[in-house]
């Protein structure tokens, strides 16, 4: 376990973390502000990934592909809210769960019809496929570094949007208090649609970023969705700051855990036992972390609406 390797894994953890944050941020706002259980958020990731991949293939240019895909994901969130989601706000959580579960089924199958069940492999853009030395003699894939930077930039952007703009203030004031916001002259319906679309956008960007790193395939969003839910539970529903901290934490624990745990276990179990228990424990690490945090802080690390 060299320093280089450790550093590389730390950066991978950070990359995984900011990707999760992009997904979790929208989710925590939708959940926290509109009290809506949007299980189909993973589908937004998938839509973004597919939009970017196909537009990249169409235009031959990765950056153009992403640029064009972003408004598409924004529109998809906007339309979805308008056509379906807004009819479900008054329903109880179970109804929302079931309806959005139905959406997951529908979108996954739709993608299968449109693009086939096999994974699309999108290539890394040539300009970003090199390596960067984060330390002397420590090369790191440039693309992953870019993902980290994009994620951090988005985080700052979300923070500015929520804390320092009028729209953000309206969002924080409580898009779930119709009477009050209406009295303040705010069109609450448009506000909710906006929050939804922005959340979809960021999730889509996450999808676009990880597309070249993993496979673009139907159902790619669901594992990320569940991890994002864990992030939100740990961070506190409604708190964007909490989502960031928790996302980085989860990304780190998950990535580093898989690498370090077998090593740690090997030092006091035999090789065979460690190699058996290692992967099992590593894949459960994040959930064990979540359970521990819940025991001491049942509503997450950060108070709501942070």
């Amino acid at each position, binding site marked *: 376990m060299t320093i280089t390797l450790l550093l590389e894994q730390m950066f991978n953890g950070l990359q995984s973390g900011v990707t999760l944050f992009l997904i979790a941020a929208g989710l925590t706002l939708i959940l926290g502000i509109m009290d809506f259980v949007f299980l189909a958020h993973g589908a937004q990731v998938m839509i973004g990934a597919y939009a970017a991949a196909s537009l990249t293939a169409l235009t031959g240019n990765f950056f153009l592909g992403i640029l064009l895909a972003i408004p598409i994901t924004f529109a998809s969130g906007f339309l979805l809210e308008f056509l379906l989601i807004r009819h479900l706000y008054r329903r109880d959580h179970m109804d929302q769960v079931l309806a959005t579960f139905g959406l997951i089924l529908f979108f996954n199958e739709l993608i299968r*019809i449109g693009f086939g069940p096999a994974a699309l492999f999108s290539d890394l853009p040539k300009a970003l496929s090199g390596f960067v030395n984060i330390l002397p003699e420590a090369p790191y894939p440039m693309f992953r570094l870019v993902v980290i930077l994009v994620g951090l930039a988005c985080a700052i952007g979300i923070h500015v949007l929520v804390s320092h703009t009028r729209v953000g203030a309206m969002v924080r004031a409580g898009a779930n208090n119709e009477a009050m916001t209406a009295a303040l002259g705010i069109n609450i319906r448009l506000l909710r649609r906006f929050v939804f679309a922005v959340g979809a956008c960021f999730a889509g960007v996450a999808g676009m970023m990880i597309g070249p790193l993993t496979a673009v395939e139907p159902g790619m969003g669901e594992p990320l969705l569940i991890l994002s839910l864990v992030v939100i539970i740990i961070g506190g529903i409604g708190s964007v700051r909490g989502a960031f901290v928790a996302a980085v934490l989860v990304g780190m624990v998950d990535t580093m855990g898989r690498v370090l745990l077998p090593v740690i276990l090997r030092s006091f179990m035999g090789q065979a036992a460690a190699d058996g228990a290692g992967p099992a424990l590593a894949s459960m690490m994040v959930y064990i972390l979540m359970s521990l945090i819940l025991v001491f802080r049942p509503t997450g690390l950060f108070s709501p609406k942070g």
Partner: protein
Amino acid sequence: MGALKILLDGANRNRTLFVLLAGFALFPIYTGIADLPFWNDLAMRIMILGMAAMGLNLVLGYGGMVSFGHAAFVGVGAYCVGISQYYGLYNGWIHIIMALGACGALGLAIGYLSLRTSGIYFIMITLAFAQMLFFLFVSLEQFGGDDGMSIDRAEFIIIDLWEPLRLYYLIWAALTLSSILLMFIVRSRFGVVLQAIKGNESRVEAMGLAPLPFKITGYVISAMICGLAGALFASWQEYVSPDIMHWTRSGELMIIIILGGLGTLSGPLLGAVVFLLLEEILPELMHVVAPNYAENWMIIFGPILIAVVLFARGGLMGLVQRVTGGRT
């Protein structure tokens, strides 16, 4: 009231359920005459799925707890069979006791950790725990990991499962017993408190009852019923893999319950019948109507579910009640 009277009264109130149970009991006679043994297989699958859905319905429909973790209990029940056989235990009764015990204990642990939260937190936590168990079994290489493990038909002392139909009636008996058990439970003092908690937890507290012990107890019972279903499933399918406990399978159980009618005794089994029949019929239909997209028949399910949620909340039992004027 004597037990028999309660039983008959319950059967009368849930006529759809008992008609279905009677139907399943008599079904092999028909398939025997018509020489359609494949349909027995389908019927067994429906009964098992219906049992698992009934278990979940106790907490979902009657208790109002949206748990995404119940497929995990089905899976644990199934793996109890597989793992026992791995270690040389082939006695089916022991498998069942193990499944009940393991799921009871797991239900207690997960229930205790999760039920102190509520609302969105509860939903997400059960989802996370289900995923955790899924990954656990995926990474247990000696039990097949991702590929799963094959299972021999268990030996039930007295019942030789290799006789055709023995497994069928074993499953039927388990289903019927579970139905009767649930029928007693939902009308009992425990059951009405559970339903009251679903409607208004603070009122229950105001009456001097702490809700948590009731919720946990309900959770444990439902976990055990799902575990039993899982153990029987392993014997039926002769195979178990982590896929059985993927969180989307919990979603499937929820679909079945809502399709059949949430919070009714007959709903889950009726929903299982309709769901699995749809699964058989839809692909055939697609072959005829849109042959190019025949493989994508699943696409219908999503909108059906959304439509049921939006417009037909009472599910099929809601329809039945409207037609029969209140009698289910």
